[in-house]
């Protein structure tokens, strides 16, 4: 279980997160939505400690700390069990798909090469890219690169995987293959926090949806509560803008 309380982050005078509370039970899939600039990505980056939050309290399993006096061990524990999948894939350019997936296993987890290779091949197989193991990122399509990136995260078997707009940088015809893989990961029981503009997908796979506005949680609840039944005007406008097809309405016509 991951519990965040009062998380704040600002860049100089610009306050991006103004006290975010978020609870992520084990095995749940949490979607974060909101217009651009609302702090969605910053929230994920703070959870993975790619950015240092300015204030707040994080509880993760048995570890609980205030971000202002987090010890190195606390941060290491958090980082070693939380892995991010990025919008722009960020595969290591000079490494093959297989080496990309093996890197964390060999260097961070200190596994034997053979063992790491076995796990990495299994992870690549899960995303349907075992045949492409020896290809370099520049020889793969965007969708394939993102699937390798997901395999790289899966191989480390983290407790939580963060998806930061995983399909925003993709050509339209590649979005589905990536969403399918994410859906499989969600079904496997992995805890997921996902930031995405694919509203129908969020509606479909999430147990909980959080609507961020101005660096704060405006509304949270089940996808239905937040995206359909809400009477918050900001969400209504947002949902209308991002082409969300409300299934319930569709069928009732």
């Amino acid at each position, binding site marked *: 279980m991951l519990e965040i309380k009062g998380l704040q982050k600002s860049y100089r005078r610009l306050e991006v997160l103004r006290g975010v509370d978020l609870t992520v039970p084990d095995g749940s899939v949490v979607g974060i939505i909101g217009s651009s600039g609302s702090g969605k990505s910053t929230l994920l980056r703070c959870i*993975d*400690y*790619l950015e240092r939050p300015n204030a707040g309290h994080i509880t993760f399993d048995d570890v609980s700390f205030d971000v202002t006096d987090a010890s190195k061990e606390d941060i*290491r524990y958090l*980082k*070693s069990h939380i*892995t*991010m999948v*990025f919008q*722009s894939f*960020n*595969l*290591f*350019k*000079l490494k093959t798909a297989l080496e990309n997936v093996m*890197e*964390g296993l060999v*260097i*961070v987890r200190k596994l034997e090469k053979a063992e790491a290779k076995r796990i990495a091949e299994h992870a690549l197989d899960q995303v349907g890219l075992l*045949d*492409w193991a*020896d*290809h*370099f*990122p*520049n*020889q793969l399509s965007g969708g394939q690169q993102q699937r390798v*990136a997901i395999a*790289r*995260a899966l191989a*480390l078997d983290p407790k939580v995987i963060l998806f930061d707009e995983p399909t925003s940088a993709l050509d339209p015809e590649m979005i589905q293959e990536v969403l399918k893989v994410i859906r499989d990961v969600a079904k496997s029981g992995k805890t997921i926090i996902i930031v995405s503009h694919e509203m129908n997908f969020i509606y479909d796979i999430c147990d909980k949806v959080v609507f961020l506005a101005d660096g704060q949680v405006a509304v949270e609840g089940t996808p239905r509560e937040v995206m359909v039944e809400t009477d918050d005007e900001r969400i209504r406008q947002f949902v209308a803008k991002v082409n969300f097809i409300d299934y319930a309405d569709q069928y009732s016509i």
Partner: protein
Amino acid sequence: MIFTNIPKLLKYLPTTLEIAVIAYAASLIVGFLVALVKIKKTKVLYQIVSFYVSFCRGTPIIVQLYATYFGIPMILQLINARFGTHLSSGFIPNIVFALTALSLNDAAYSSEYIRASIESVEAGQREAAHSIGMTTWQTLRRIVIPEAMVVALPSLGNSFINMIKNTSLAFTCAVIELTAGGQLIAGRNYRYFEMYISLAIVYWVITFVLSRVFGLAEKRIRRNEKEVDRRAGNQRAAKELPQA
């Protein structure tokens, strides 16, 4: 005459290569540290290295060599006078003066190539490494440096070739390397012109071989641009095609 000189010159080749290799290795280490200071913008250190780089790039290398050759003994004397020690520059081999000046001079230049190449690595590469739990040092060693090398290698190859040629100035510190050796030999029969042509050939052969070696190294490090066997992937793609 020109070609019969060459075997006699080879006696001095090891000295030249020794100076070049050691000075270059030292230059890379110093250049890397200077680059890190410049990237991190560490207070005080940043001002010091900026001054150092500006000084080394703004003064002739021969002046730096003489300054080192005469300066180090004077600094030792100063230390002796101040602290009552008995350090003597007589025990320092001449080659050390040449190595110091040549490496510090080259490091000023290579620090700039290294800085630019490290900064050229996309931030996302580092973030991905951190996200899978790699430490800063692991990220630097496994991800950032190899990718930076792709950018830096042509410049670094160039600077090694420059270093080979600059070793010919080591005679200012009373080191007998290729050029100085050649001058000694030519002094016996006053055939200076032929000797300088022989020297030119020797230097050119060395640098030619080196530029080839660096070219190969570059190819090796750009391993992602190699043509790979795409058959496996294509077969799969074919399987996924809908049956007509």
